[in-house]
């Protein structure tokens, strides 16, 4: 009994972690290359959820349309990311870091209100697709099929990233950018294209994760800031620019929340900030990060 319970609590934490990792992965990628913490990442995530809902509303009769809707939402947000990067963001490269940060915050404000104008203030909801409706029992703990699907996808994205980072020339450039900016220039990389590409991929991931959480979380105004703070923290405790650090950060956060509430029932409101404070005090550059130059 006790072991079963601990395992199901672990699975709950893992679910929390993987959903958070999906969002944080794109944030981590952009930070590694562009050296900007993109506040608007959470807004892209929220817009992804809204777009998925909208596509579902258009595809009304078929619930399996969710898969298409998720893809459409992710693509839509990737296009939005492309436009934002090309038209505006790139003009701020080379300016002070703070201004880039403020730019992304301005996007949060503007796009947040735009979503409110388009979809209202009420909550929206997307149903789980029937193909992953059921749940399966793992060592006596119940694991919903949809969560399992997202977990597999989360791990697949993590491994996929690892392969891309290690094995492709784009990956080498991304790693170089994360480690040493001067090296990037000497690699002869087309920095402009790399930045746009990374921003678009990150936006795609934000849109995708927004669409993927819509069957398990309500779509409400304000979900953008709620998630961005958590995602930021996961990226920071993992070590900025470190992809595996983000993965590890998310896993730790999930378990800290999951088991923290067993010990301190009123821990939830502190959890993520307490975790960040402790980790940054002990390891000033995050778990797998290196000092910023």
């Amino acid at each position, binding site marked *: 009994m006790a072991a079963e319970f601990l395992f199901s609590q672990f699975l709950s934490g893992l679910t929390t972690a993987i959903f958070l990792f999906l969002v944080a992965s794109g944030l981590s990628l952009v930070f590694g290359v562009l050296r900007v913490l993109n506040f608007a990442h959470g807004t892209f995530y929220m817009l992804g959820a809204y777009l998925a809902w909208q596509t579902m509303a258009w595809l009304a009769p078929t619930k399996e349309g969710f898969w298409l809707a998720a893809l459409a939402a992710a693509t839509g947000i990737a296009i939005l990311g492309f436009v934002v990067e090309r038209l505006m963001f790139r003009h701020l490269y080379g300016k002070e870091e703070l201004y880039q940060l403020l730019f992304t915050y301005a996007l949060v404000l503007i796009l947040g209100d735009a979503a409110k104008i388009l979809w209202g203030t*009420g909550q929206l909801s997307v149903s789980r697709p029937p193909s992953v409706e059921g749940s399966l029992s793992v060592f006596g703990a*119940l694991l919903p099929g949809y969560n399992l699907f997202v977990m597999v996808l989360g791990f697949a994205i993590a491994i996929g990233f690892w392969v891309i980072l290690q094995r492709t020339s784009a990956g080498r450039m991304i790693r170089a950018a994360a480690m040493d900016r001067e090296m990037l220039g000497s690699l002869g990389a087309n920095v402009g294209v790399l930045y746009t590409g990374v921003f678009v991929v990150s936006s795609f991931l934000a849109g995708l994760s927004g669409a993927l959480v819509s069957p398990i979380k309500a779509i409400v105004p304000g979900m953008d800031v709620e*998630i961005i703070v958590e995602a930021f923290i996961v990226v920071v405790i993992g070590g900025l620019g470190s992809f595996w650090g983000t993965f590890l950060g998310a896993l730790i956060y999930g378990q800290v929340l999951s088991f923290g509430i067993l010990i301190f029932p009123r821990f939830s409101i502190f959890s993520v900030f307490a975790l960040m404070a402790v980790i940054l005090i002990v390891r000033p550059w995050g778990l797998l990060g290196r000092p910023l130059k």
Partner: protein
Amino acid sequence: MRRRTLLASAAASAAILPGRARAANEIKIGMPMALSGPGALYGQPITKGAEMCVAEINAAGGLLGRKLILLPRDSKGNADESVRVSRELILKDNVDFIVGSFTSAESPAVSTIAKENKVLMVAPTAKTIQLTSPANLHPYIFRTASTTDIEGRTAATLMAKWDVKRVATIAPDYAYGRDIMEAFSVLLKKLKPGVEIVDQQWPKLGQADFAPFITAQMSKQPDAVFGAVFAGDFASLVKQAKPLGYFDKIGNRYIGAGETGSIEMTRSLGTDYPVGIVANTYDPVIWPDAPEVHKKFTAAIKTHLKDDYGSSWAIMGYAGVQALAAGIKKAATIDADKVSKAMIGLTFETPIGPQIIRGKDQSANRGQFWGKLVRTAAHPFPVFEKVEYTDPTPFMD
């Protein structure tokens, strides 16, 4: 040189004109309300309800021969912003009354301002008992909302009817959640001494990940749950709890406070709604046994909101203005002190029938609609099987 900026800015701020002087043929009502941020979900329909009431009164010739003017302002759901806009309404727009402030954090704050400026205020939605506790009561604060006491205690009477021994709770970790749980458990233990509270979960307000709370609670094997998780948080809870078998395991013996039975909630969750649970709402909206006045109100609000189903929240703004209007009418003046006196013991009409403002805590006897949610062929979302209005009078002290 650059310090000239300062002078220029000072001059610019001086250019803002203070509000027009009070017109003799108008009665101005300021309405600080959460129109942006998470609270906008409620604030918007509440404001629409108040708007409609004002329009109806004006169409019928106004009040004391004067026209009502409603000035809604976005409080952003923040206490300090609420205070700021309330003062602005009083000092700049010269409002005669205030109907509004949304949350339990905003309302006591605005109440202080009302008292200081001797402007009478009606709080249409604030549930905190602190608002009208003896220490905080003053002649200029009235409440037409239900309270955490009423909500928690009426839920306890429902729970007491069930054959359950092990009860768990889940509520957002802040004053509302803790007050309602306190009210609930004290009365439940009195009504049903054998019952045991086996688990209490406190997710934060705005929690999106409920899985850890759900599995932790299920491990304590409760027979029934009283929940006060509301709005988007409730939707997230349900979506994550259902596939974990949470509702099945307790045989749907879940009582959901925080207006989780509202039509907004059932509509947005649709087929994902955990049918079989008992939940509350301010206005059942789809209510076959409704009194005539409610049917009329529902028809009107549907048109006003341009929505096929209306809203369960609009009634709160509507009734708040009704209470104030009745008070002004009875006092036959807009003098705040006289209206205040007139409102004590006042009976006023609302879409769910007449309500009384008692003197003790200057609060209306606004009760709770509780009912079990079921699926029917008539609607694409769950509706109340049979909704019952619980008179709050026995639970108000």
